[in-house]
């Protein structure tokens, strides 16, 4: 059996699953310290499902901790950003297009140094060791403990980044965390560098959170391995997550959508996941979230992660409802204070949940507390909720025809039984914890990232070879062989190298083999 946990800004959800069967589910409030909320959720599903700690084979956690830290510009460390490439790139230094608030949070400790590669692997300029030693001295003087290193064309050749990291680590000591851009992103210097700086700023928080998760499991008596879900829907070990906290970005929406497909049995549909603060609208194709085709901004910063294409709208169970000059709902929300602030819970604030209860769509809290609301206003508010979601779905789908819509998440009670542009509105069993289910059924991946020569081998054969190797690695990481499929193929041409070389990155994923007391380490 396995436990899936989803830690959101408002709720911490948990499920106990045996294979694809949900044995127990729980929705608890996210706690200030996070850990106790996870402990609560774990112990609740273990009690409900009558599962002793020894029977738990794996715990999968999806968390928005790191995304939220960046969005809120809180709990971030100041980062030393070292870019190798001078004189190239001087016109656009690191952090050039960051919003001021986030730039202030990570500090503008920028060290532009020589080095970097041309597209074909030649050095732009050699690494200048003295320059890096001076940078190390200044980094130490400023008391910075985390370093982001980016080098021009490091996805083609990461040697300069590794060399600089070794040199800085030698000067700064073991306590300084170093994040290398070629391990984090793809070609596109500013976007890859941005992601690396974010990663560096999250390393200290990463350690804190990982320790908290381990502590939560210890507290629950569970000795099984713990995994975190990544934005591509696969799992990583907690040790990996400590080093690469940015890999957790957007794992929440991916988990919800994967959970929705399992629960509804629908492979092609729109998914609406309504939480306390936002509704995330995505589209499933063949059971997997459609990927964003354009660059994804996180908190106003451009990155080139592969992300599910999700449209968030500011509508959730805790959204403020204002009736003054024209009716408005959201985008702000009472968030995790819903159980205190909403009218139905004895508070003073009119929220979307109050409207749902007053309109008869939901039945929780104290219905009498909203009995005085003007029925016309309630009707208008419900229509506004439906229209907001229907419009967002319409923006996400690719053709004019109606599509089935699966609604999940605790806030999905806000929606009615019908939506414009929907063939049907499916609200599956366990809809409130789809995200935790998605985490629990997340898969493990295998990746190949290597340079091939197209002179000796035709392109198709190179791709087939890389795909086969990625599949083998996924199996080695614990995936069931017949469940593995290739999810990502990327080629970077390295022209002008002898033999027309191409760098190929292939990712394959499969279901974690479980149930035979065998769980191999992912990643």
């Amino acid at each position: 059996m396995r436990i899936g946990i989803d830690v959101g800004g408002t709720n911490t959800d948990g499920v106990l699953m045996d294979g694809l069967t949900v044995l127990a589910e729980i929705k608890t409030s996210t706690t200030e310290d996070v850990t106790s909320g996870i402990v609560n959720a774990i112990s609740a599903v273990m009690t409900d499902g009558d599962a002793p700690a020894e029977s738990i084979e794996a715990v999968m956690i999806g968390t928005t901790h790191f995304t939220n830290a960046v969005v809120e510009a809180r709990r971030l460390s100041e980062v030393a950003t070292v870019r190798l490439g001078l004189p190239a790139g001087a016109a656009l230094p690191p952090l050039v297009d960051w919003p001021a608030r986030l730039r202030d949070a990570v500090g503008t400790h920028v060290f532009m140094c020589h080095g970097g590669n041309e597209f074909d692997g030649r050095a732009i300029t050699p690494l200048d060791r003295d320059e890096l030693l001076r940078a190390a001295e200044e980094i130490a003087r400023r008391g910075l403990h985390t370093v982001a290193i980016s080098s021009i064309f490091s996805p083609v050749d990461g040697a300069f980044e590794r060399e600089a990291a070794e040199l800085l680590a030698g000067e700064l000591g073991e306590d300084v965390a170093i994040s290398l851009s070629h391990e984090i992103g793809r070609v596109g210097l500013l976007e890859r560098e941005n992601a690396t700086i974010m990663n560096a700023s999250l390393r200290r928080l990463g350690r804190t959170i990982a320790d908290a998760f381990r502590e939560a499991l210890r507290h629950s008596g569970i000795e099984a391995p713990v995994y975190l879900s990544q934005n591509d829907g696969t799992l990583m070990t907690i040790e990996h997550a400590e080093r690469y906290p940015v890999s957790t970005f957007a794992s929440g929406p991916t988990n919800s959508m994967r959970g929705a497909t399992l629960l509804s049995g629908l492979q092609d549909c729109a998914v609406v996941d309504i939480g306390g603060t936002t509704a995330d609208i995505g589209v499933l194709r063949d059971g997997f979230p459609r990927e964003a085709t354009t660059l994804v901004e996180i908190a106003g910063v451009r990155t080139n992660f592969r992300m599910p294409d999700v449209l968030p709208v500011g509508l959730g169970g805790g959204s403020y409802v204002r009736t003054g000059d024209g009716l408005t709902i959201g985008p702000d929300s009472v968030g995790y204070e819903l159980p205190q602030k909403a009218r139905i819970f004895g508070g003073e604030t009119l929220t979307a949940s109050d409207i749902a209860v007053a309109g008869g769509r939901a039945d929780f809290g104290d219905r009498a507390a909203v009995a005085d609301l003007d029925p016309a206003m309630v009707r208008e508010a419900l229509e506004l909720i439906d229209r907001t979601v229907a419009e967002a779905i319409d923006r996400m789908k690719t053709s004019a025809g109606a599509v089935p819509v699966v609604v999940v998440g605790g806030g999905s009670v806000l929606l009615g039984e019908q939506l414009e542009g929907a063939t049907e509105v499916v609200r599956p069993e366990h809809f409130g914890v789809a995200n935790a289910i998605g985490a629990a059924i997340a898969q493990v991946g295998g990746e190949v990232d290597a340079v091939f020569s197209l002179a000796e081998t035709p392109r198709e054969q190179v791709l087939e070879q890389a795909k086969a190797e990625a599949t083998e690695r996924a199996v080695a990481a614990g995936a069931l062989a017949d469940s593995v499929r290739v999810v990502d193929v990327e080629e970077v041409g390295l022209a002008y190298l002898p033999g027309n070389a191409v760098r190929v990155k292939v990712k394959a994923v499969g279901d974690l083999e479980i149930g035979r007391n065998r769980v191999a380490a992912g990643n």
Partner: protein
Amino acid sequence: MLRQVTEDHLDDIAIGAAILGTGGGGNPYIGKLLARESIREHGPVEVVPLDEVPDDAFVISVAMMGAPTVMVEKLPAGHELERAFRAVESYLGRRATHILPLEMGGLNSVTPLCLAARVGLPVLDADCMGRAFPELQMVLPTLYGVAASPMGIADEKGNASVMETISNRWTETLARSTVVDMGCTAMIACYSVSGAQAREATVPGTLSLNEELGRLVRETQAVNGDAIGAVAERLGGRRIFSGKIGDVDRKTVAGFARVESRIDGLDGDAGVSMTLYTQNEHLAATSSDGGVLATTPDLIIVLDLETGDPITTEELRYGCRVAVVAAPCDPRWRSPEGLEIVGPAYFGYDFDYVPVEATAART
């Protein structure tokens, strides 16, 4: 009509630049940032309409040259273009009065703005192509007998040179191998002309068109209108295909990003697929039905099927849902002399040029 470019215009110019770039010309985001930093440091850029340029003005065309896929990674140092520009000035012993965009599209819609801000000269509301093309001799001034050389070329490392060549084709050949040696990106200054020549041999109003197209997309999106239709209409073209990208075969050959993409039809195009041929810019589109949908020198523009936002060649990837719009080029490109240097045959495609208006009649 644009008279001055300030920081506030850059978002719209960048969107328009990606549209006119027909997939190529470099990443307009990088260009926007470069222009923004230049304007923040040196102030707004004066824009001069073609009909206000004095006959005896001394005008130099400028651009970035190289592979856009390299540009997103190896960003400029900042001094390259001024070095190339000054190299031509000192070779000719004359100071320029105006800056002329060599092409309009992608990074090169804004490259001239960076230089104009930096050296404090006005930029002409015009360009030498009325779009973007991958080679240096592919400009209207070539049809008028204007020489590309002397050409200044400079890289971010500090290397610079001036070339004197016997033909514009030779300028391209020599510059191309220099660009490759420089690491596939360089800044160039060439085609020095008088104000009178500029008026005759360039396409007027294209910097304004850039800004107008971007504004049109933004404003149409704001009212949930049909941005794809709006772009097609403004350019006098039409939507030729809608679909999902099924495969992108990408390679860099002799300094060019050569791409062949298969687009599988959606909606009204379901069951048909389109092949899009790209060498920096989109150069041809054929249908699996066997027909040519559009070819260079007409503009072939790829837009996001849902939003209408332009998609650059670097952003083409499996699963993108796109609308393809084709629009007529400057009529001078359709002359036999024009087609000889920018027609499909020049790029190695064995189909004849069919004006986009004519392919419309067949579908």
